[in-house]
């Protein structure tokens, strides 16, 4: 089917991008001053010890051999061993992945659920108080650094009102859900909410504001277009004019921009995690940079890059579904 071929084509392009990502991640170490051996070896290590470490890590091999080794390792899920803890890097990275995914997914859902109705409301009530309110909110939202918003949320809801937790992740969604199913207790879910609410708000506000802006301007464009006039001339109920026709076409550019802004979402997750001590990939990246723990850093970056490519393919598929013309081009 046409859509299937389209997805396949995007997947092949994605593989090329992933290969580029891995290459950049690998190359990063060679354009960085400092030697990995000094990270691992004790300060007073003898030259023999240092040589032994270098041999073990393959640092004496020619560059292309190291590169192929790294590529082959990745294909088998081997990211090397942490320089600091000497545990499997992939185990550490994948242990952190669910927390980041959970945060990003919840923030995205919150953003989409709030912003699209808000954008539509703003466009259909143009120049009324609701529109001004939504415009002001979205302007402030895209101009606020999410780490500062996070701190302000902590200040208001945790320090002053003492409602939400400000650090850590709590039970996590999956265990909270299984607690609800097996024990019939909502306590886990409530605890999960008390941990995730503030980080999700801090991370999601920028996207809520961005999508509200895009939806508003997109709806205004669509509602002013010739086909909307034609749809109204048919006598269709305004609900269908707005949602089936105008909103659907508005979502096409919204999805495009969302795909482009995914990097911002992941970057935002990194810093939000730092504010709320969220045990995800972001905090792992920051600690591994400070510690020069290359296998962990490289592994995290590869996972982030692959995740970005995968989500982009998903977004493109959604795009093709909403806007079927792209499949035939």
């Amino acid at each position: 089917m046409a859509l299937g071929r389209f997805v396949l084509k995007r997947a092949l392009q994605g593989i090329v991008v992933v290969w580029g990502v891995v290459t950049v991640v690998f190359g990063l170490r060679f354009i960085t001053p400092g030697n990995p051996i000094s990270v691992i070896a004790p300060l007073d290590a003898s030259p023999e010890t240092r040589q032994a470490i270098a041999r073990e890590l393959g640092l004496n091999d020619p560059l292309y051999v190291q590169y192929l080794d790294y590529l082959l390792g990745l294909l088998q899920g081997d990211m090397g061993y942490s320089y600091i803890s000497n545990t499997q890097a992939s185990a550490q990275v994948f242990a952190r992945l669910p927390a980041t995914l959970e945060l990003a997914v919840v923030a995205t859902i919150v953003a989409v659920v709030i912003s699209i109705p808000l954008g539509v409301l703003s466009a259909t009530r143009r120049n009324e108080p609701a529109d001004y309110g939504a415009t002001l909110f979205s302007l402030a939202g895209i101009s606020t650094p999410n780490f500062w918003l996070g701190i302000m949320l902590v200040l208001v809801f945790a320090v002053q009102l003492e409602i939400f937790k400000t650090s850590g992740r709590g039970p996590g969604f999956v265990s909270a859900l299984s607690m609800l199913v097996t024990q019939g207790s909502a306590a886990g879910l409530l605890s999960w909410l008390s941990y995730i609410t503030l980080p999700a708000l801090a991370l999601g506000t920028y996207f809520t504001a961005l999508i509200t802006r895009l939806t508003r301007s997109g709806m205004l464009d669509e509602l002013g277009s010739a086909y909307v006039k034609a749809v109204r001339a048919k006598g269709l109920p305004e609900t269908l004019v707005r949602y089936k026709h105008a909103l659907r076409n508005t979502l096409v550019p919204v999805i495009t921009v969302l795909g482009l802004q995914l990097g911002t979402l992941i970057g935002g997750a990194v810093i939000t995690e730092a504010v709320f001590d969220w045990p995800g990939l972001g905090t792992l990246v920051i600690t591994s940079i400070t510690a020069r723990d290359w296998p962990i850093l490289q592994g995290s970056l590869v996972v982030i890059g692959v995740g970005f490519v995968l989500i982009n393919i998903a977004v493109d598929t959604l795009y093709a579904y909403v806007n079927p013309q792209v499949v035939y081009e």
Partner: protein
Amino acid sequence: MISPRTLGNLRREFRSSALAKLGVLIVVVVVGVAVLAPMFAPHDPTTQNLDRSQLPPVGFSTTTNSTSTEMVNGSLEVINETNEINATLTYPLGTDSLGRGMLSRVIYGARTSLLVGLLGTILAAVVGVSVGLVAGYYRGRVDDTLMRSADVMLAFPSLVLAIALVGLWGRAAWRVPDPLVVAGITPEMPASFVLPGTVIVVVGLVNWVWFARVARGEALSVREQSYVKAARSVGASNSFIIRRHILPNSATPILVLGTIQVAAIILLESALSFLGFSGTTLSWGFDIARGRDYLASSWWISTVPGIAIVLSVIGINLLGDWLRDALDPGIGGEGGSGGA
């Protein structure tokens, strides 16, 4: 490059939009304050004064509990004191944990933000526009290669890449003499200003992709125009056509994108310095990070610089909206990569 019609559009849009006026006002104030920082700042932003630490902003007061041990009648006694701390007009926005005036720090922080924002954007624009124009003009394999590498760049969130690069390359910074101090106008202020070099290079390098995308799109459409074909048919060189025809036509969208990018890079810089990956301590993000430890006692240390960021970025975004609405470059919501 800027036609009278364009100027007319700008003027008309400016007159009809209150938000555009607000944006210009904010940007003018922020730029003025940043340039003349030594004249506006009431105190040296780096001088510590522990006697005057954690003073609240005007209009607020706080209480602190201090515990001290004193020799009373030959035995050690623990004394609990509750002190009411009132604001003082000397420090209108309060002081931080080391007794430095928040107002002065916010004023000097504007310098860092704007310099990084502007220089980073210029660097990103130069790299991105060059890549984009070449890709769009030559198309084919050159285009594929350059745009695939742009895709690879996009696959790294700019903040993550920036953290990695600054963290790994170190935080080189240059000390730039402050002309106002050197000239003897404000001798009591710091004689030099720290320009965070690595940060500028890195934010420029992680944001060039947006410029490349826009410039490529423009080049692709302009190269099909008949006057470009005519120029080529009379033997004009490729570099001449790019400089003479394609670059000027791309100016409008690049200007609009550049404005949005200044805002995005200011947000990125504040995030970097918040995480400690910066070359200077005179930065809004840095102060927000320091204030986190005092949230319960001195909320203003984190709050004040954050408000400064939000206001400046709102101003620049409004300026960008004005340019976009007046010039209609057709780049939609692309190219902002803020929020970090």
